[in-house]
Every structure is written in structure tokens, then in C-alpha cells.
């Protein structure tokens, strides 16, 4: 359902348009009303940033770091030719010796999360474990995006 259609249903009196999938972020970004309960239904895949920079195992860390910074990011994911996540580079890993290959610098086999997991639960776990970001992948390991804790908390926790 398109955001406009959902908003229209609401103005027409269908107050509980909850099964709005895939575009909840657009809806929120557009400033349309969201209820507290909606935030409990948001999924990790909705909030994961799909444009996270990617690199391959043999790339030079210095080159990747330049590219990541130029794009305004502080993290990157190492993937294979199929888009399967092999490693994670947060600011700490990106700050290592620029002459290292990605496979020497990355955190190999990071914990990944499925797109359908509740953003609310993710926000809780990310806060409890002090994680700034977590990769979201399909069940066969393919990259969906990078979920930031700030996004998980903002969109997954009901406003106080």
C-alpha cells in the first residue's frame, strides 16, 4: 500500500492501518502520523540502511576507508560476489593500518540479524550490548543493510 493510500484510509476513518510494510520509514520521514503501537511492529529490515558501503576481501583498507569517509559513512561490510556478508568494519577496524587487506582488518563472521526481527527487540539488545550497528541479512547471509542503534531506538521504541 502506498503511503498516500494508507494516509487516506486513516483520514477516511480506518484508524488502524497497521499492516503497512516496506515503506514505514518513508511514511515516518514524510511526517505522517504514527501511533506508538506502530513502532512495536517495525522490522529491522525497514530501518536497515541499504546504501551501506561494501568492499571485497582483497581490497586495500586505506582505499576502502577513503571511499567510506567520502560517502559520509563510518562503517562498511565485506561481501563476496553473491552479496553474502563476510565481515564488518566499524570505525575501529577502519582505523587500522591502511596497507592491510580487508580480510586482515575486518571482524570476520559478525552476528547478523534477519530483516523481519522486531525493531523494538533489536533496540533493546543493541542498547544492552552497546552495539552501534549490526548487519541485517537474509537467511542465506545476503546483505540487506546496516542497522544503526540510533535508528533502531528512534523507530523501534515508543516515544516517551
Amino acid at each position: 500500500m502506498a503511503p498516500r493510500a494508507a494516509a487516506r484510509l486513516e483520514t477516511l476513518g480506518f484508524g488502524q492501518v497497521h499492516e503497512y510494510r516496506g515503506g514505514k520509514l518513508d511514511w515516518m520521514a514524510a511526517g505522517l502520523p504514527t501511533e506508538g503501537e506502530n513502532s512495536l511492529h517495525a522490522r529491522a529490515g525497514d530501518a536497515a540502511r541499504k546504501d551501506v558501503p561494501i568492499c571485497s576481501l582483497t581490497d586495500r583498507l586505506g582505499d576502502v576507508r577513503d571511499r567510506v569517509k567520502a560517502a559520509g559513512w563510518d562503517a562498511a561490510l565485506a561481501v563476496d560476489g553473491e552479496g553474502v556478508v563476510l565481515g564488518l568494519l566499524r570505525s575501529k577496524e577502519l582505523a587500522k593500518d591502511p596497507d592491510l587487506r580487508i580480510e586482515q582488518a575486518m571482524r570476520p563472521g559478525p552476528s547478523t540479524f534477519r530483516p523481519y526481527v522486531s525493531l523494538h527487540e533489536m533496540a533493546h539488545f543493541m542498547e544492552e550490548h552497546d552495539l552501534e550497528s549490526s548487519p541485517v541479512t537474509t537467511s542465506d547471509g545476503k546483505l540487506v543493510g546496516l542497522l544503526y542503534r540510533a535508528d533502531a531506538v528512534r523507530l523501534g521504541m515508543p516515544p516517551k
Partner: protein
Amino acid sequence: MIALEVKCEKCGKAIDVCDMCEDPACKHVVCHDCLSVALGERRPQPHEHGG
């Protein structure tokens, strides 16, 4: 590699490192099974009354 053994806060199972953050100093260690269940990636048990 340092093989530190920690225990899952929820089920008490001994694991190498917290499955969520992989931080040896984690204070809320959770194992892979408990994390999967908590995030709804896996069902804890088949439902008894078939619901």
C-alpha cells in the same frame, strides 16, 4: 585467540563469547539459541495445543 568461557544470562549455557556483541567483557551474555528465540527468529518449542 583468547578462549574465555562465559555463561548465557538466560539459560546458563557455557559459550565462548556473547552471541550478540562478541565482547568478552559483555555483562548481558546471551547464547545463539536464546538470542534467536528472543528475536523471534526461532520458536522455543512447538506449540502444545497446536495453536
